[in-house]
Structures are given as structure tokens and as C-alpha cells.
């Protein structure tokens, strides 16, 4: 019991903006650096080392940005929903700010997945766009992100914005499994999952490593950007707070 309260109180300590602000300031450069290194390695493998595909030629190399972006687009929404739960259950201000800080990055990755998918679709399917289930549900995910951001920017009472945003994030999260399983549920043009924890991967080793490195890079990048953004949010919201003035930021 005692340890439980202790760990809880530590959790809340880091969940307080005053503690988190300097922590985030120290952490984000590291994440950014790791992201850069991983991205360089991933691109090197993807563009230079991985072999040219037998059927698709070099256009398949879009995969190194397309798939990580698609993964991140869904993953970030899940993380937002997680923070939404925290917002409701523990009423921590920080979790709401994290939710808000993540949304633009999520929207960006969704957009990149759509964009690169479209670029890829032209040579392989002969069309920029087809209305198959996965593509459509990814598009809907973009709309969900946009709806979330529009709502957040329309509310300027922070307390209300936090709680309303959390509600939207939670309700919208049902869409993520639909995207992920769409290829399974409906017979579609789009590729099914080829990376799985239970099966041996069905693609070349170099490709897989390159893709995973890129995915990690995107992940680190998202964390770095979210930390930077959350710092900006903290400054904006706590400009009257004494600790911030002492930190010399306001």
C-alpha cells in the first residue's frame, strides 16, 4: 500500500507541468538526435543497400516512408486515446496537453501515408486513388485528426478544451481497428499485413530492417516534437504561475 501511494505520488509529480517542463526540455534534444541517426541509417539501408524489387523496380522504395508513416498515424491516435483516459481518470492537466501536442504530428503522418500511397498507387495500380477499404479508412482517420484539432482550436477555455478533446479522442478510437483489419475483413486491392509477430516475415531481410529503422525514427521524431510542443503549451497556459517566472521563461 505504501509503495503504491509512493509510486502514485511520483507519477503525479512528473505529471505536474512544473516538474515536467524542465524534464521535457532536457529530453527532447536526445530524442531528436536519435531520430536523426535512425533515419539516416534507415534511409541508407533503404535507398542504397536493399535490392531492387523484381516486379516493381525502384518505385517500391516508397515503402520505407509509407509504411512507417501509416503505422505511426494509427499508433499516435491510440496514444492520444490513452492520454484521454488519463485525463478523465486522474484529471492530470499534462495528459491533456500531451494529447493536444500529439495531434498535429499524427495528422502529418496520416497525410504522408496518404500522399506516398497515392504516389505509389500511380505506377502499381495505375491510379492515384482507389476507394478501397484501407485507403478510405485512412482518409477518415485524417478527418478524425482534423476534427479533433478544429475542436481544440475552437475552444479557448483550456479546461473545457481538454475534456472535450479527450471525449473526441476516445470516441474516435474505434476507427483504428477498422483501418488495421480492413484488409482482412474486406477483399481489397491494398496489401495485407506482411510484418507480424507470429509469422516469419515475408520480405527481404534488408527491407525489413530498413523499414523498422525508419519506423523507430518516426517514433523518436514524434516524441521529440510532442515534447517541444507540450513545452510551448505549458508556457502558454501557466504564464501566471510563479514557477515559470522563476524559470525565466514567461
Amino acid at each position, binding site marked *: 500500500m505504501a509503495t503504491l501511494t509512493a509510486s502514485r505520488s511520483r507519477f503525479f509529480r512528473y505529471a505536474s507541468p512544473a516538474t515536467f517542463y524542465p524534464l521535457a526540455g532536457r529530453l527532447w534534444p536526445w530524442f531528436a538526435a536519435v531520430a536523426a541517426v535512425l533515419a539516416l541509417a534507415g534511409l541508407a539501408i533503404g535507398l542504397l543497400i536493399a535490392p531492387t524489387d523484381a516486379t516493381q523496380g525502384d518505385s517500391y522504395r516508397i515503402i520505407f516512408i509509407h509504411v512507417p508513416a501509416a503505422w505511426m498515424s494509427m499508433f499516435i491516435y491510440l496514444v492520444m486515446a490513452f492520454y484521454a483516459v488519463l485525463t478523465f481518470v486522474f484529471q492530470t492537466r499534462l495528459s491533456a496537453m500531451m494529447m493536444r501536442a500529439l495531434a498535429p504530428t499524427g495528422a502529418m503522418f496520416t497525410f504522408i501515408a496518404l500522399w506516398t500511397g497515392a504516389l505509389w498507387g500511380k505506377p502499381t495500380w495505375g491510379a492515384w486513388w482507389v476507394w478501397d477499404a484501407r485507403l478510405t479508412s485512412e482518409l477518415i482517420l485524417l478527418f478524425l485528426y482534423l476534427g479533433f484539432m478544429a475542436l481544440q482550436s475552437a475552444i*479557448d477555455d*483550456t479546461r473545457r478544451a481538454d475534456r472535450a478533446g479527450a471525449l473526441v479522442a476516445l470516441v474516435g478510437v474505434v476507427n483504428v481497428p477498422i483501418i488495421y483489419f480492413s484488409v482482412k475483413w474486406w477483399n481489397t486491392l491494398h496489401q495485407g499485413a506482411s510484418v507480424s509477430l507470429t509469422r516469419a516475415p515475408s520480405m527481404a531481410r534488408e527491407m525489413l530492417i530498413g523499414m523498422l529503422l525508419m519506423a523507430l525514427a518516426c517514433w523518436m521524431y514524434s516524441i521529440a516534437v510532442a515534447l517541444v510542443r507540450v513545452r510551448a503549451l505549458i508556457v502558454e*497556459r501557466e504564464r501566471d504561475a510563479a514557477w515559470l517566472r522563476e524559470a525565466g521563461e514567461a
Partner: protein
Amino acid sequence: MLTDLLPAPNLLSATGLACRRGERRLFKGVAFSAPAGSLVLVGGRNGSGKTSLLRILVGLSSAVAGSVAWCGRPVATDPLAWAAQLFYLGHASALKDDLDAAENLELACSLAAEPCSRDARLAALARLGVAHRAGLPARLLSQGQRRRVALARLALTHRPLWVLDEPFVGLDAIAMAELGQLIETHLMRSGIVVLTTHQAVDLVVSRRIVVDLDAASLEAPA
């Protein structure tokens, strides 16, 4: 009458109430204790937080600190039961523009689960001097007439606590006198009235409690 209205001696008390709106802290440490029959006058400059305080009292918004108690029990534990003890009238009159005065009164009564006969409603409207406009859609009423229709609820409700946010605004002298009388009667029957007003109104009241928000303010006066 007195006894069936009030089975136990009523008491409205607040302790250490503090309020923030957005990033701004409005007041803190607001406390009072109002026994049955007392008039609580909430005073303060424009923007000092009177409306905010009243909304906290009735449970429409939440305070950052402090609590409100009714007959000794904190009200936050059972909001529905608390709402059933009080009548609140805010800056907005809660009239539906497309309903006429009588219908509006009926809607308000049934929302509060205080059903009343058509005659009672017309009598209440007559008391506030708008019986001759009972059939006109609220949209067409004048500013003061709208307010009178909203106040006609006071002649019908049996709730022990009235929370009124500037009820005298826009009323002419006759209506003000009528409203003053309603309040006085309610106090005499051991009701409690919480009131804000910028106008000088003289009410004959046995016990008057003044809550001055300027004193509890956290800002330098403008």
C-alpha cells in the same frame, strides 16, 4: 404552511470558496452561514465574480476550493437532491421565444417537477402584471415583460432556497415592488434568498448577510 415547507431548520453555508475563470483567479476564502429566513446579499463591482459565485452555489460550475453545505451536509454528494431544494434565475431568463408566457411558465414548472394548475399560472402572471400578454409569443415581449414572466415562477415555487442573479434588472417600479414583496414573504416563511443587485432596493428583512466579493477579490481594483 411554515412547517410543511421546512421539515428541518434550513441552513445554507459556504466555506472557503475560491473561483478561477480561465487563467484568472477571481476570489478566494468566501464563507458565510445563512440560517432560515435570511437574505444573503452578494455585492461587488462588475466582474468581481457574483455570477460565478451563484453558479457555484447552485452547482452549475465547480469551485477550485471550498464547499457548500445545506443543513450541514455538503451538497456535492447528491447534486440532484440539491437541485430540488433551490430555484435559480440567472442573467438569462430561460424563455422559449416560440412559446407564449403561459406555456413558458408551464414548461418551467414541469421541468422542476412542481406541477401547477392553469389558473395558478395565470394568477402568477397576473401578480407580475403580464397576464394581459399571456398569449403573446415570448419573442414579442418587451425586455421587462420577459423578465416578469421569468419571475412569475417565484409565485409558484415551493423551494426553500432562491438564488437570484440581478432579478431587478429591467423592471419598472411596480414590478420591483411586487418582486420585493415576493422576496419578503418568502423570507418570512423561513425561506432563504441569495441575491445580487446593483440597484438600491429596500427590503424589510429580519436578517441580512452581506457577502462582499471586492473584499475577497484577488486582484487590485481597476
